[in-house]
């Protein structure tokens, strides 16, 4: 675990910037892609085994960090709800008018509903502002991990990582 986050519990944008699970800025602008925020050598690889297009590689040693090949990612969102650490998000920076969407795994109940206005939070749980819910998905194979997609200003795409239902 990197030094600062080992005291605060959350990763900083600086720590994530050049990490192997984060797609390049060029790839992010093209359209939806996952962001893997996993920087610790824990034994875990369901992201790799759930990816049908081979965009995530952990390798034989399951404590390796997941490496994302952004060009291969087809934004199917499977890894977002599979990751046992809830460390994978899907972002889309290609929305018009400088907007972006952020999809996150969500295991609290009740679930929000489409078009609800919720509060977007950053990795530290600090309030960023209001966000509209674009989609809520939950199917049987997601095994109770729903995904919630919110619409945010584009410069929150790498910051908004949680929501609070009440304003």
């Amino acid at each position, binding site marked *: 675990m990197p030094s600062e*986050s080992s005291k605060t519990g959350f990763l900083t944008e600086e720590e994530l910037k050049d990490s192997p699970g984060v797609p390049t800025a060029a790839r992010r602008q093209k359209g939806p892609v996952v962001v893997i925020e996993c920087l*610790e050598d824990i*034994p875990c690889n369901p992201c790799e085994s759930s990816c049908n297009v081979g965009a995530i590689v952990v390798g034989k040693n399951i404590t390796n960090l997941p490496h994302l090949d952004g060009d291969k990612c087809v934004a199917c969102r499977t890894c977002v709800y599979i990751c046992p*650490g809830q460390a994978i998000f899907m972002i889309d920076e290609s929305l018009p008018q400088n907007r972006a969407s952020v999809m996150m795994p969500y295991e609290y109940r009740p679930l929000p509903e489409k078009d609800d206005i919720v509060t977007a*939070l950053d990795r530290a*749980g600090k309030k960023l502002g209001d966000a509209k819910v674009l989609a809520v998905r939950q199917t049987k194979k997601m095994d109770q991990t729903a995904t919630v997609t919110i619409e945010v200003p584009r410069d929150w795409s790498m910051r908004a990582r949680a929501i609070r239902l009440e304003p």
Partner: protein
Amino acid sequence: MRRYEMICVGAGPAGLAAAIEAARNGVQVVVYDENDRPGGQLFKQIHKFFGSQEHRAKERGFNIGQSFLDEAQELGVEVSLNSVVLGVYENGALNVMIADRIEQVKAQKTLVASGASENMIPFPGWTLPGVIGAGAAQTMANIHGIRPGNDILMVGSGNVGVIVSYQMMQAGCRVAALIDAAPEIGGYAVHAAKIARAGVPFMMSHTIKEAHGKDRVEGATVIQVDDSWQPIPGTEKRFEVDTICIAVGLNPMTQLLRMAGCQTAFVPALGGRLPAHDENQETSLKGIYVAGDVSGIEEASTAVIEGRIAGLAIAHSLGYLEESSFLEQRTQQYTSMKGLRSGSHGERRGKAKEYLNAVMKGTMDAL
């Protein structure tokens, strides 16, 4: 006196995995558990597990527990609940209290998979109702569907502390803060990140000074500690909470093994005084095996593999499994284990296990 080929003490992940592996090879097995439900801690693990497919990664603990129970039942394993094993003796005899009667039973092989208990720390007010173990809070919420309180202070940042904090929030509680006297978070970073982004502040290098309240917890005061773990006066901070969860580690429940006279060694990395054992999980007492937390605090997934190894070894030593097949399957289990005992969290545990094996062999002294 009833006789069995194999007796498992404990129906948690280690005991069930051992029973399944042995029964699959033809061994007649009974599993005793003092609780009224089997599964050990698995049924309160509502989160998805780590590891890879062979470790049942991405499945939730309670679902894994259910599939172990189904498998054990299909194989004809007898699971005796409300059954407290009172003593394990050298000749293979055990005393078991089943409901209100005591029976003497005898096994050719005994596996002790009795698990662990939660550590507590004393502080002024720690006996007030509302100060509870994090594992107890988890049992209340996830097994019985009861919220232990509304506003929680979590003490301890290991995996139990961070996971239970998240589950308390899922149950609808507010977690006011998570404190730990250590300077760095002990649990997995991804678990910590999950509760940090929900707004739970981590206060490292902080310990609990006292719990407030007359008849029950009404608040808690925490205090910062310096590099020598000494409280720094003037750094107190008070929280309005009704529940204080203690998640400061687990202690292996080795009483039966020590009573039987197993050789032990002190291994802080694995939770305390532990039975020395060999690569087959057999202790210094021939015919008595160990697996899971009682042989060193690890995780459910490692407990399962240790249980499987013990089950295979027992089947082999009873003549149900040929040497070559046994060795091949044991190698598979150790290959699967290797991944779980590597990385910055697992490697230390792997080394500590090697030390316990070396004590057993006599190549290292028992501390």
